[in-house]
């Protein structure tokens, strides 16, 4: 079903909208949430919460692209739960490992004066993404936005896991250089 049709179902307050949304994008959402939470049950709950969020947001919103909007909600809810549940030291998921990779990349003995505005950081990150090739950009987003494992990225891109790992290492190096030049680290 086309995204526009699904949105129309939301506007009609038809519960079929949720079923269609789940049919079309449920797999992407569950995978994203599971990568972050490493728990099927929690991922299930988060995705359901995200569907509820969609139900509340549409109308009035007419998100375009629908999938990006949905993924953003799933990611935000999953991260909220991830950080909220850290007392349980859940760990073990791809997101935890991805965060550790980023920690290594961002670590700096320097202390940057003042708090960096998040919007400014978003702008910097977008600038960095523009310097990457489409394929490398996908690798980066799949790893750090979607928290995919190397294996999942390899399957998606047709690269070997080793190649994915090599590329991501290089991209992190570039990121570090880019952020350093931007005075962020």
């Amino acid at each position, binding site marked *: 079903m086309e995204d526009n049709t699904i949105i129309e179902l939301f506007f009609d307050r038809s519960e079929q909208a949720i079923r269609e949304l789940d049919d079309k994008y449920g797999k*992407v959402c569950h995978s994203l949430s599971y990568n972050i939470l490493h728990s099927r049950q929690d991922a299930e709950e988060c995705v359901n919460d995200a569907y509820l969020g969609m139900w509340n947001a549409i109308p009035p919103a007419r998100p375009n*692209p629908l*999938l*990006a*909007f949905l*993924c*953003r909600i799933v*990611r*935000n809810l999953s*991260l909220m739960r991830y*950080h909220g549940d850290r007392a349980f030291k859940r760990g073990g998921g791809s997101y935890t*490992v*991805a*965060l550790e990779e*980023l*920690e290594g990349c*961002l670590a*700096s003995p*320097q*202390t*940057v004066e003042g708090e*960096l505005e*998040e*919007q400014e*950081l*978003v702008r910097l*990150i*977008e*600038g960095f993404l*523009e*310097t*990457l*090739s*489409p*394929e*490398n*950009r*996908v690798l980066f*987003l*799949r790893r*750090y*936005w*979607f928290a995919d494992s*190397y294996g999942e990225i390899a399957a*998606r*891109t*047709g*690269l*070997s*896991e*080793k*190649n994915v*790992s*090599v*590329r991501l*290492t*290089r991209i992190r*190096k*570039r990121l570090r250089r880019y952020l350093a030049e931007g005075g962020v*680290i």
Partner: protein
Amino acid sequence: MMNAAQFSSALGKVNDKYIMEAVTYECKKKKRSGWLKWGALAACLCLAVAGFAVHQFGTVDVPRDTVGEDDCAHDSAAYGFCLNGNSTAVYYPISFEERVRYELVPKGEVGLNESNTYQITEADLGDLMGTVTDCKDETMIGSQVYHFAKYPEHDSICIVDTSNGYEFYVCSWLDVSVEIGDVSDAVFAAYGLPDSLETMGLLSSDFQYLSGIDDEAAIKAIFELFSGKVNHGLEENERLFAQAWYDAYGNDDICYSEESGTCVVKEPSLFDKAHELWNEGERIVQITTNRGFDLMIDYFPAVGVFTCGDSYYELSDSEVESLNELLRGGL
């Protein structure tokens, strides 16, 4: 100081286009067959090089100005094209890094914007190179292609008279397919090497320029070492990398998998250790021709292989020693 969680949170707010690009990217494993599909395939697989990036294990980077050329992600993709039916050279919209290379943006700029975008005029048009004969975007077919007057001898950059006006396109490398069992000479022949040699340079594994190689005898010896080698293919190459691990550590924590045709690892955390082993001393030999094309040869002395495009070649111990000596001389 920013931490990873803050970074991750900010990353979560990047523009939808990046998310859509990542979420819709579903490309198949790189195959050479059916090149005519390249309009979609090559863009998806990023088979072009931005002047530098034939990566190890046969993959390449293609930094572009926009995300639009990714056919997997966008309907409004910008496609590559072939000129005069020559499928070896595929031209793509110019990237920011390529604009820097061709001095089309002021020094120090970090990204493309309206104010620093080079405005092409008729004065920039050099001789006619030909017409677009193959492109997935049918509106491009038949468009006239000109040399860029600033680089009249270069075939690597051109100006296309598109329906949207003049646009820069580049072809930084040639798409030379070498079948498994065939020799590396086919690659050099396609580039017209060694006669067409303009410069030879040495890059680090992350493509930082280290030095030029100017000595004629050294250049000749390097060509000789790279010539006549048999493409043993990706799978054999992976076996060599797995063997290098075994030789170093005496275990199969990283081993070759017949099923996947690649190295597999028991623990992702071992990758860093493996990379240190495999990539020790890795160098990229950048050969630029008088037509502006770059041939990148990725050399892994620790494993004794070099890769070039999607072909993989093995060197003997003595050849590795000789090559190391020659490349050290370039530093």
